[in-house]
């Protein structure tokens, strides 16, 4: 009987717990089981008392950030250590095959293909591929593979080979268009099959842009804060990049590189009605369209592409039309006090063969540098000559429209430079280093500062939140910082040292010969001054600077002469506290055997730690000495 009653109470208690967790009151639960209310009430009260402990004070943001940075630094070290770990024979074979495929894949990408690739090398590559794949039937089998299939890498490789074998430019273009279309179809298949794929390449045309979703060639792609977006997103612009499929029928953008649109496409045609969706014609890969100037070879009458930007428009709303070239300036240098020399000087060397009827490009961008007759407009550096026409009074910082002659060697000669807007404010060079705290579209938060990126920003591969980076950029009008380059730095090293405070000079402290900075985020326990003994935990940056993360005042620094034996008669304590006191410079050992260091930041009040009665061998007392009630 009692057992039966207990069983009932077990069920009823659980039901009540579920109800209370769902927001019901205790009384409602008791009303459900009136015959057992007397038994349930005290149990529910006990459970409710435990729940009272549930709220946890929010973590201090600065601490959380610091911990994360330290963790990520360790994570990168771990990654390196794992990559360098020796592997077994099977592992080595698998790695070799994987690298071989990847290497060939990289080699055969269109952008990397030299136009005049030696026939012998091509033949050797083809032979390797044929031997490695054709003989096993993998090529045939891979024809219908989609991302996530084991044979998909083979298919990718074969596609690259087909492009490579098409020596005729037009045939190659057509083939690349076909393959791009196939890639889109593959992505659609992955979505339809609810397949999980970590990374898929694709290219298409932007049809619709919402804050959290783009529609690209019919694909709905979610944009997350960590999505890296390069270039200026615009409807109808070509975009390529990588997406991942979590397996729920959606696509999440990893990287989206928006190609600059041709000027003619940017300028709105008053007579045309904008269409939101393009046709279903497969979209050519954007890289191809920018590499081959076929669509700009025909001279375009100037009148037809009048700039539509008003002089008051901001630079980020202007449409950059500078296609990436092989000679990108890594870090454009801005002259703080520009003295533009607009007219050619004696340094100008006329280009003997430049014909004014050669292919032209038109760009709208900001003048970044003027060096004699060479102007850097956006990422394009162009010559000027005596016939260059100037409209307005453009100088460094001005927004200009430039009509450029494309010389046979790919260099530029400006035919026209027209000022569209003066420099709203002299941009200041800006450089800073810090942890990447967030990447939200074109806004990065680095060390607490928001910097913006655009399609011209040079960003090291693989940068992610938590990495240490250096940003070179400029502070433009309104105080916004625009990055020209973001360079990844090796993670800072964790350091821990102890000693006497030798000097405190503003935010620079010196302890035991080591100088370091103290910031607002530095946790200082106690009130250390010159002469005090402190334990310091710090991060040493690649430039040699050291920033303290915590400073712990070692309390009541004991000296050997101050040690007195216990006055109380010996008790049954296993070992009386007659041990030699710990020297004051002893760095507290990490509380556990975890080798990763940056976790043991002394915390809490400087509570003196009484001598341990009898520490077990190898059992170092924790430095935190965080008290817990008995």
């Amino acid at each position, binding site marked *: 009987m009692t057992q039966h009653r*207990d069983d009932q*109470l*077990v069920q009823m*208690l*659980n039901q009540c*717990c579920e109800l209370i967790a769902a927001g019901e009151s205790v009384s409602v639960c008791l009303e459900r089981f009136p015959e057992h209310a007397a038994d349930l009430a005290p*149990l529910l009260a*006990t*459970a409710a*008392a*435990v*729940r*009272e*402990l*549930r709220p*946890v*004070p929010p*973590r201090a943001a600065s*601490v*959380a950030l610091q*911990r994360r940075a330290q*963790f*990520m630094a*360790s*994570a*990168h070290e*771990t*990654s390196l*250590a*794992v*990559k360098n*770990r020796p592997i077994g024979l099977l592992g080595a074979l698998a790695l070799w095959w994987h690298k071989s495929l990847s290497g060939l894949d990289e080699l055969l990408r269109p952008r990397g293909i030299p136009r005049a690739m030696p026939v012998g090398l091509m033949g050797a590559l083809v032979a390797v591929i044929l031997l490695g794949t054709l003989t096993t039937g993998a090529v045939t089998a891979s024809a219908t593979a989609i991302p996530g299939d084991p044979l998909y890498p083979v298919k990718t490789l074969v596609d690259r080979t087909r492009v490579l074998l098409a020596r005729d430019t037009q045939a190659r273009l057509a083939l690349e268009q076909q393959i791009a279309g196939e890639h889109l179809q593959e992505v659609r298949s992955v979505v339809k099959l609810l397949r*999980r794929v*970590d990374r898929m390449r694709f290219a298409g045309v932007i049809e619709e842009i919402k804050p959290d979703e783009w529609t690209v060639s019919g694909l709905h792609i979610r944009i997350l804060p960590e999505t890296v977006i390069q270039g200026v997103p615009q409807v109808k612009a070509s975009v390529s990049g990588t997406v991942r499929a*979590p397996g729920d029928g959606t696509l999440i953008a990893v990287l989206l590189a928006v190609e600059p649109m041709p000027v003619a496409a940017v300028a709105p045609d008053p007579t045309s009605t904008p269409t939101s969706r393009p046709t279903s014609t497969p979209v050519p890969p954007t890289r191809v369209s920018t590499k081959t100037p076929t669509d700009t070879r025909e001279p375009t009458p100037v009148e037809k592409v009048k700039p539509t930007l008003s002089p008051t428009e901001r630079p980020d709303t202007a449409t950059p039309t500078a296609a990436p070239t092989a000679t990108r300036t890594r870090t454009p240098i801005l002259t703080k006090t520009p003295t533009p020399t607009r007219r050619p000087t004696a340094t100008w060397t006329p280009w003997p063969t430049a014909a004014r009827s050669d292919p032209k490009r038109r760009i709208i961008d900001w003048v970044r540098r003027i060096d004699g007759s060479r102007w850097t407009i956006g990422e394009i550096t162009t010559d000027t000559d005596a016939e260059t026409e100037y409209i307005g009074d453009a100088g460094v910082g001005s927004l200009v429209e430039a009509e450029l002659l494309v010389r046979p060697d790919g260099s530029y000669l400006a035919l026209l430079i027209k000022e569209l807007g003066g420099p709203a404010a002299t941009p200041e060079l800006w450089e800073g280093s810090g942890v990447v705290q967030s990447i939200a579209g074109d806004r990065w938060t680095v060390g607490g500062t928001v910097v913006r990126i655009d399609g011209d920003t040079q960003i090291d591969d693989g940068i992610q939140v*938590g990495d240490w980076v250096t940003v070179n950029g400029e502070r433009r009008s309104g105080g916004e910082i625009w990055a020209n380059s973001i360079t990844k730095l090796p993670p800072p090293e964790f350091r821990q040292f102890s000693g006497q405070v030798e000097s405190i000079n503003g935010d620079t402290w010196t302890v035991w010969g080591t100088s370091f900075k103290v910031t607002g985020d530095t946790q200082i326990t106690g009130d250390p001054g010159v002469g005090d003994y402190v334990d310091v935990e710090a991060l040493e940056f690649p430039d040699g600077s050291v920033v303290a993360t915590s400073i712990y005042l070692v309390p009541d620094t004991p000296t050997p002469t101050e040690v007195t034996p216990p006055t109380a008669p010996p008790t*049954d*304590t296993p070992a009386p506290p007659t041990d030699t006191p710990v020297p004051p410079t002893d760095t507290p050992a990490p*509380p556990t055997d*975890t*080798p990763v260091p940056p*976790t*043991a*930041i002394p*915390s*809490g*009040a400087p509570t003196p*730690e009484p001598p*341990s009665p*009898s*520490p077990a061998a190898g*059992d170092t*007392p*924790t430095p935190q*000495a*965080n*008290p*817990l*009630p*008995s």
Partner: protein
Amino acid sequence: MGHEFLMFLLDIILWALSFGTLSVIQGDNARAEDPDEQGLLDRASRADPEAIGALYDRYVGRIYNYIYHRVGQADLAEDLTAQVFARMLEAIREGRAWRTSFSGWIYRIAHNLVIDHYRRRSRATFVELEEASPLVADGADPVRKVEARLEGEHLRAALGKLTEEQAEVIALRFLDEFSIAEVAAMMNKTEGAIKALQYRAVLALRRVMQPA
């Protein structure tokens, strides 16, 4: 004498708790990760820093809360949380990361570190409640904060008097808010067994907390 004997008993209980829970929170049947997490786990186990970072972001708050509930101090919870994830990196580096359930695995590390901390602390030092770390001024009513702390410490002490399984089920159900199914998976028991254990645990806690 009595105080130290009590701490010795607590030490023994915590030792038993650590070993008991080692076998309790088994990875095989622990909480099933959502499908979206599986790819992340695969990459993290291969030391992909991006995936490791994502896992950290996903779990650091939960682990912190789990530890805070057991130690009641923010600084200490931060330190122990950092150690949990340091051990995760260590395991990845040494190729002995989770086999099946990541959440069960990471919670087990957290649990063991808490136990380790208590064991170490009970050997190292005894500090009365009055010497506990100061309350941080944050605008809240300090009297209420002190009361809450005392209540919390009283309850934590009471939890220490339960069996390891009872204490664990109370914590997982009412502090960490895991469902019966999740707790069953984490403790490698059936849901019915967890319900019965929950009942016995609440009953025992009620008895312990009642004034003598």
